[in-house]
């Protein structure tokens, strides 16, 4: 299936505080923009994949979005894999098209935890709330601490991820945080859940983003940008909660990455630019290890020295990622991957022809990988 399907259109809402808007309304706005970008008729869409929003968890959410879009798609559903959902839905769309079940798929994700309910991110974990073990951040901090203890990873090394994201966000007019920071600023930002400072933590945002998947050889549409081929995808699910995971510092991203690289027929050395899920600074660092860019435990060293900044060996999260552009759970990273390969990124990587994208959900419970090629 390598290269047989493509992303033919992208669209998004503004990111930030969008008070008074439902997630369905945000999905419709993002979809409208993606449909226009792809140059297709709305009624050509015969598959619809929607992520269940964290702030509005309702049954048959996909059908509700379809109704708002005025569609009766042959294939429809909502998917809950947290921040891995977007990439997994793109994969499902490509497989549905390959199987002849559909020909034009809309993948759309919207959420409004900023002005709606952020309960999903700050709820007590299981029966352990008596300890004050609350929120998604606690689990990630537990993983980061173990990484520091096992491998000597430092807070300053985590800062390199945030510094790169903020530098790239500064160049993106649509990013929520546009002020660059230095390592010292990161270190001076308040501790939230030690070892995490504020600047290790992603934004909480309202917003939506959508994209259109078609066969790569679908008839070209007049005036529309060239479709960006999907070279590979994969997923891997660590599944177990942090407290149960035998290894805190390794995840099933290894499986996801290897699957996607195998399908694409490439390896880490072929990647020109990467958009790696960065809900917390530790995540891209561990993802790089699990994908094989460096050995386990060496991520802290590897991200230093400007390697992941614009102009470096592997520019990372070139629109700012979740740390700077928007905290919505993942689709913005795919959109930036498409923009890079179209040459439309706010921080273009000259000559980039392969972009790697990751998505990750829960506390590293779920993971998905996408390889895009220009």
């Amino acid at each position, binding site marked *: 299936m390598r290269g047989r399907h493509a992303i033919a259109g992208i669209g998004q809402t503004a990111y930030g505080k969008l008070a008074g808007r439902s997630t369905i309304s945000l999905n419709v706005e993002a979809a409208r923009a993606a449909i226009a970008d792809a140059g297709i008729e709305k009624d050509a869409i015969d598959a619809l994949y929607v992520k269940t929003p964290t702030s509005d968890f309702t049954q048959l959410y996909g059908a509700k979005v379809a109704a708002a879009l005025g569609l009766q798609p042959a294939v429809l559903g909502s998917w809950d894999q947290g921040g891995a959902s977007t990439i997994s839905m793109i994969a499902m769309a490509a497989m549905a098209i390959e199987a002849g079940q559909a020909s034009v798929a809309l993948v759309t994700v919207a959420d409004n935890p900023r002005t709606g309910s952020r309960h999903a991110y700050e709820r007590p974990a299981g029966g352990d709330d*008596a300890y004050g073990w609350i929120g998604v951040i606690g689990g990630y901090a537990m993983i980061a601490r173990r990484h520091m203890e096992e491998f000597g990873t430092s807070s300053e090394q985590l800062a390199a991820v945030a510094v790169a994201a903020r530098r790239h966000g500064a160049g993106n007019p649509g990013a929520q945080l546009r002020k660059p920071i230095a390592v010292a600023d990161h270190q001076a930002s308040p501790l939230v*859940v030690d070892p995490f400072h504020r600047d290790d933590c992603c934004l909480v945002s309202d917003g939506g983003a959508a994209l259109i998947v078609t066969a790569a050889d679908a008839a070209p549409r007049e005036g529309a940008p060239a479709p960006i081929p999907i070279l590979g995808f994969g997923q891997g699910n660590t599944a177990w909660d942090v*407290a149960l995971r035998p290894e805190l510092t390794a995840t099933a991203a290894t499986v996801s990455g290897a699957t996607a690289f195998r399908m694409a027929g490439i390896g880490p050395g072929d990647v020109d630019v990467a958009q790696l899920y960065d809900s917390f600074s530790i995540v891209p660092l561990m993802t790089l290890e699990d994908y094989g860019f460096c050995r386990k435990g060496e991520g802290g060293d590897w991200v230093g020295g400007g390697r992941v900044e614009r102009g470096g060996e592997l520019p990372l999260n070139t629109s700012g990622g979740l740390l700077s552009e928007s905290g919505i759970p993942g689709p913005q990273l795919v959109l930036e991957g498409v923009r890079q390969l179209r040459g439309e990124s706010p921080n273009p990587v000259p000559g980039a022809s392969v972009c790697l994208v990751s998505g990750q959900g829960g506390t590293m419970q779920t993971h998905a990988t996408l390889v895009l090629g220009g």
Partner: protein
Amino acid sequence: MTDAAPQRDLVAEWQDALGRGSLTFARCASCGLAWLPPRAECPRCLGPDWSWEEAGGRAKLISWVVYHRAYREDLTAAIPYTVALVELAEGPRMIGALHNVPQPRADQPLQLSHTEGTKAFFCPTPPSMGRKPDA
């Protein structure tokens, strides 16, 4: 219309035991796996036959975090507070609290110090000591 049948609340059973000062875990009668948090079937062999077993109290520290922000109003007075992830000698891992561990380090030996409500506290194991905590 009838009310839905109440489900057995295994977490409540486990916490009730903690409330009585007893740290327990589940042990599968078929394959011997020990596990937490409580669940109705063995996560290895999927068998439904298991029973509660009292933990010996020995454990080690896997990781820990320090909350500097109160995510619930009643925690405001508690910050900064530490939450630990410990592995019991019998195998199960659980969230716990630390007692007299000013400078935690990964993999350091711990032992059950005491319980307080539904919370289990772990303290360092003195080098010469194998099992029983001093009360």
